């Protein structure tokens, strides 16, 4: 009896699954189409950067055209492009390092050290969090100009050295560490500096990755502030150089411009693909989730 019902019942879900399977195939196809459309500007940039300038605007040269590394050679022998790249690296590296080391310290203080004025400092973090950069750049420029820091690395770096986002993520993470751990070290006679560097900081690796990656992406891609503060060409970062070149009136040779775009995009995309779970963690821990 049971065997018989099994035999009669079994085909039913199978036929019921068929439209499901069809729907799933359609869904996969649609998603794939979405990915192709979404990534096409990136693929186009990558492909064009290996084309001679003259061929980039011509259509249909996708498979038949010439492939060349000439654009990258041209960039590298450009008197200023290596400098733009170096500027971007220096500024981003300093901001990432500052946010990892300094923001974790502030996060530790806010999460675990009862000190007078703690609520005030945390309030400052939240207020800064809510101030849009658009709001800040005019008076920030006046301040930086007053401090004689236009066209300097200091002017590009210092305003973003300890971002409220970094402090916030660190505070949330360190707040979850058990107090007993710190108490035990205190009983053993360890000072606060020692506790932080020897115990707390090494435990913060996931939060450090999140803060490091988020500050790398924002500083590497930042346009508005470097555009305002770097007025001499030798202080341009990659986005400023690209924006200035692509909007200049004269004849632009698209080959090197495409190669420059690829050089700007690639570091972030590589970091993102390898560390993408930390991006998601970053979105989650900044309270959006």
């Amino acid at each position, binding site marked *: 009896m049971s065997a018989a019902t099994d035999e009669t019942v079994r085909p039913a879900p199978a036929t019921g699954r068929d439209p499901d399977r069809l*729907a*799933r195939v359609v*869904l*996969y196809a649609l998603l794939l189409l979405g*990915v192709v459309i*979404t990534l096409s*500007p*990136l693929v*186009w*940039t990558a492909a*064009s950067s290996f084309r001679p300038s003259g061929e*980039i605007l011509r*259509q249909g040269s996708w498979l038949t055209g010439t492939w060349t590394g000439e654009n990258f050679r041209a960039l590298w022998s450009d008197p200023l492009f290596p400098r733009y790249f170096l500027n971007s690296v220096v500024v981003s590296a300093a901001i990432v390092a500052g946010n990892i080391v300094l923001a974790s310290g*502030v996060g530790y*203080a*806010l999460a675990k*050290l*009862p*000190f007078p*004025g703690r609520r005030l400092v945390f309030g*400052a973090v939240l*207020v*800064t969090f809510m*101030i*849009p950069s*658009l709001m800040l750049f*005019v*008076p*920030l420029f*006046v*301040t930086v*100009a*007053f401090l004689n820091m236009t066209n300097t690395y200091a002017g590009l770096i*210092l305003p973003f*050295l*300890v971002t409220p986002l970094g*402090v916030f993520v660190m505070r949330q993470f360190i707040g979850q560490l058990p107090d007993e751990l710190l108490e035990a070290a*205190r009983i053993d006679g360890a000072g*606060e*500096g020692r506790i*932080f560097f020897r115990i707390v900081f090494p435990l913060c690796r996931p939060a450090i990755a999140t803060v490091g990656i988020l500050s790398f*992406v924002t500083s590497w*891609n930042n346009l*508005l502030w470097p555009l305002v503060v770097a007025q001499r060409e030798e202080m341009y970062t990659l986005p400023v150089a*690209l*924006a200035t070149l*692509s*909007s200049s009136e004269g004849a632009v040779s*698209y080959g090197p411009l*495409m190669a*420059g*775009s*690829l050089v*700007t*995009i690639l570091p*972030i*995309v590589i970091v*993102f693909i390898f560390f*993408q779970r930390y*991006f998601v963690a970053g979105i989650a821990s900044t309270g959006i989730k």
Partner: protein
Amino acid sequence: MQRSQAIAGWAFSLPFVLVFLVFSAWPILWSLFMSFTNMTSRDLRDPFYVDFVGLENFARVLGDPDFRRAMLVTAAIAVVAVPVTIVVALLIAVALNRGIRRFKTFFRTAFYVPVVTSIVAIAVVWTLLFDRNGVVNGLLDTVGIDGPDWLGDTTWALPTVTLLVIWRLFGLIMVLFLAGLQAIPDDLYEAAEIDGAGTWRRLFSITVPLMVPSILLATVLLTVAIIQVFEEPYVITQGGPLGSTTSAAMYIFNEFGYGRYAAASAASYLLFAFIAFLSFLQFRLLRSRT
């Protein structure tokens, strides 16, 4: 013990407090002061030698047809980009959450890539793709449509800029929605399935109602982001043609570029009042969710 902790607390906080005072608190207060003066770029050497002009800057900015148009341009971007981004992001998030079983990480990663990509670098290829003789018009040509001069036409430049804004933002909202969707218990869908509810019925009767808080939050986040839209128009159209893509942020940047610091500050504060109101709303929404 208490004392050493207090000292350590301040020592660790000092870098942030210094950066906050010099590069956030002081500029914000300075900006407020500046917006009531006649400060221009010529006063940069002696920023304290300026005259008070009362509310003149605010009146001038509000009466400036360029500012009004910039606000309208920004509003137009928001009115289109916010709903389109939300619908696209929600559809993809639902598809990734329950529609498919494999390659979820691949799709999520691929759709998120634009969020982390430099808009300036993408703008270069965007201007080529949407050139009068570019790839997009080439594709339209094969189906017999004579495409417009996307970036040079006052009618089409703004939609083209808006498309780039959506391209950059939808991945972020998709991840936000995925987090919200994962919180919906599977039992609800199973029960609905047993009751005979189809895919679309489940989407509109279960998913959408339960996602209302996430959708509201996304609306606020997107609106705040779009009010500050600067890079997209700055790089692909420079605000043109004829100011048809000059956003509010670009207006402030232009005022700054002309050296009218006081007017730029006044315009910043006007926008900030709006953003602050939305941020307040955002906090309320966040609180009601937790």
